[in-house]
């Protein structure tokens, strides 16, 4: 990977109370690239995004975004950095009391003093980029899941961010919407000259569009590589994940005492 990283994560640890979520993560996100973080649910992917956005602080390790240490930032510095970031939340997180248009215009009105005519043109441009210019007057409750995700995407890129983070952008979408969102993520990254970080567990969709992949399991990076390397990998975890096998290094069963023992204990109680 090239040396010029927008996000550089070294030996990051994070724990909720006593529960370790991330254990010594190292990661480089090069400028201009589209990098995916994959892993099964609850492996710490979203936590990683929240650490990069400064919503959580790591218990140990360094995390640099554009050369600046995120955990050491004060409130003002953090907000300055977040203005240069765009984030798409798992279910869009659109503001439900305002229209699609106002959702996309939200950041422009909050963070700039641009005249309303200019904001109007910019909003329509962003909505056009996601194919929803004609839906600008609708309320979020009138949108389908895929459309809501696209509006959230338009909102995330409203101020042309340097880093766009996507948290499970494919979750709950039909195959067509999934393809549309996937292509948009790639196109927008290249058109805006941004850097993109994609957290997902949709391997097939993600492998089509990303430049590099990190696999996270149980708070650690277990594999990494380009999509071709991942497809050709013989690593048992990657194999199980890419081909969606029910059992493997990631067990089907949640840890429990042996079933026979539990049944006998239940019988004794009865």
């Amino acid at each position, binding site marked *: 990977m090239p040396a010029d990283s927008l996000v550089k994560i070294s030996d990051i640890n994070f724990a909720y109370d006593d529960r370790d979520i991330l254990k010594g993560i190292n990661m480089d996100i090069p400028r201009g690239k589209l990098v995916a973080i994959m892993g099964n649910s609850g492996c710490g992917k979203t936590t990683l995004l929240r650490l990069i956005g400064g919503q959580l602080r790591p218990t140990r390790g360094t995390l640099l975004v554009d050369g600046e240490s995120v955990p050491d930032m004060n409130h003002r510095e953090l907000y300055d950095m*977040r203005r240069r970031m765009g984030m798409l939340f798992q279910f869009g997180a659109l*503001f*439900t009391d305002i229209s699609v248009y106002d959702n996309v215009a939200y950041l422009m009105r909050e963070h700039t003093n641009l005249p309303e005519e200019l904001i109007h043109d910019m909003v329509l441009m962003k909505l056009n980029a996601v194919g929803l210019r004609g839906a600008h007057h609708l309320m979020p409750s009138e949108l389908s899941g895929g459309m809501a995700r696209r509006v959230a995407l338009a909102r995330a890129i409203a101020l042309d961010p340097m880093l766009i983070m996507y948290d499970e952008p494919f979750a709950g979408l039909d195959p067509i919407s999934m393809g549309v969102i996937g292509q948009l993520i790639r196109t927008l990254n290249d058109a805006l000259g941004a850097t993109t970080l994609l957290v997902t567990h949709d391997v097939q969709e993600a492998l089509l569009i990303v430049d590099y992949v990190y696999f996270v399991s149980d708070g650690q990076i277990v594999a990494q590589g380009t999509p071709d390397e991942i497809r050709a990998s013989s690593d048992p975890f990657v194999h199980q994940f890419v081909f969606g096998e029910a059992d493997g290094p990631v067990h089907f069963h949640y840890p429990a005492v042996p079933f026979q023992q539990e049944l006998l204990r239940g019988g004794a109680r009865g």
Partner: protein
Amino acid sequence: MAEKGSLAVIELVRSIGHRVNSSVQRLGFAARFFVMILVYSGQSFRRLHLTIREIYFSGFQSLLIILVSGLFIGMVLGMQGYETLQRYGSSEALGVLVALSLTRELGPVVSALLFASRAGSSITAEIGLMKATEQLTAMDMMAVNPIARVVAPRFWGGVISMPLLAALFSAIGVFGGYLVGVVLIGVDEGAFWSQMQGSVDFRFDVWNGIVKSFVFGVAVSLIAVFEGYDATPTAEGVSSSIKRTVVYSALAILALDFVLTSFMFRGL
């Protein structure tokens, strides 16, 4: 057996300790939250339309329930007051009774209780649902402070609306008392108004009532925004937050009313 009993006692003590601990912690968090609202109020006042919008939603939209309730309470006061006063031959004092009951007590207290259940609960629901659907987190990630943008305008909207609603409640209540006492029962109109004018002191009665309703407004609005902001982000969590807003507001209003009354009217 004895061991089981002592285990149960330990469990009981532990759960009481845990409850006390978490209540104190929550109280501390609420106090800190209140300070944060005050700190970020400047930012939200610079964009006054946000607060005006909230005055419309919590104040203006509560008008109907406040006015109708005020009218009925005034009419009941007129009836009950007349029934008692005429036993002592002082039914002309009906105006005084109605006006003092309303400005000192019923106006601020009942309108605050109504405000808590009408506007307080909807503020909690709105903020709680915004939290549950990650809207507050999204806002924070967009470098927009949710306390300045969402919480402070709703808080000030409530604080500003409350005294106005209480004043309207008292005014329409007096009119209700007039309708029943003077128009229906036939108490002398001149005595009704002149005794009221003579006995109701602006600073002692009206002003104290306004102070009360302002304090209730702060309490109810703070409880409503805090419960919403602190809600567990699930359907069940939001619903129990709404319940807590109504219950805690009612208790806070009644307790504060006792404290304020004992300070304001201690010379009596």
